């Protein structure tokens, strides 16, 4: 599958997902279990994306400058700094560690 096809199919799927909330009878989704499943999938996926983007090099696990980005982001979020600043500090941490190393 090409990247373009994945983007277009992904857009169709995510739009239909949004629309499904407006189309199906409320009782199907008002089930609290569905809300919990949607929330849990979101948490699990974000956590998986963090691990993959921090430690993965192809199919190997490595420790490199990205770990510094993760540590700095934890501190910045702990201090309740805004999202954009957190992202920029993450980039700066990885950039600085790589430059030293």
């Amino acid at each position, binding site marked *: 599958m090409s990247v373009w096809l994945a983007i277009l199919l992904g857009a169709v799927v995510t739009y239909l*997902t949004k629309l499904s909330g407006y189309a199906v009878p409320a009782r199907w989704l008002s089930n609290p279990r569905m809300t919990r499943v949607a929330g849990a999938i979101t948490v*699990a996926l974000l956590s998986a994306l963090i691990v993959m983007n921090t430690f993965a090099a192809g199919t190997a696990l490595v420790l490199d400058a990205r770990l510094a980005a993760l540590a700095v982001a934890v501190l910045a979020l702990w201090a309740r700094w805004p999202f954009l600043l957190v992202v920029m500090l993450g980039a700066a941490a990885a950039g600085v560690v790589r430059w030293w190393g």
Partner: protein
Amino acid sequence: MGLSIAVATGLYGVSFGALAVAAGLTVGQAMALSLLMFTGGSQFAFIGVIAGGGAPSAALGAAALLGVRNAVYGMQMNHMLQPHGWRKGLAAQVTIDESTATAAGQSAPDEQRRGFWVAGLGVFVLWNLFTFVGAWLGDALGDPRRWGLDGAAVAAFLGLLWPRLRQREPVALAVLSGVVTALALPQLPPGLPILVAAVVGAAWGWWVPDRAAASAERTAP
């Protein structure tokens, strides 16, 4: 309130645009994601899988699964706003975290409607504008690793997860999912560990609260 949310979220678009290009997408592909997919979590997931060397089909799967919560939002907004005709189709596209939160934060029906549309359309315009700025910047910067943009991706995903970790249960799920991903990474083709984590999350959401209730019953005399 809607407007301030729109401005703040639009700014995240800069990081998305830059990271999309860093992941290897073209400026046009980054824009297509923001215009057509328009749900930040799914878009970040898409480029996150591509950046990790995953197949486009795995990126599509991760994006689709992260969009599932929008169906729940859509149900809430349909009940709250009751849009008809073409407005329903448009409302669906701008049904995201921010517009739902803004509408849900109001109590008067008029204010709910106004909050939803101002936040939804405002975020749409600014998100796309800033995606373009970010993608263009990312393109001009060259090698993303030199600027630590791979570190920015890590920070961005943590920033998206952080507000969801206020209770103990999501923290336990996040740790479990992270460990499963780390164990799966060397075993499976790139992109698939993400989908394994999604299955773990779905199973957790389906069963764990019941199990917690059951164990509470057992420990009670």
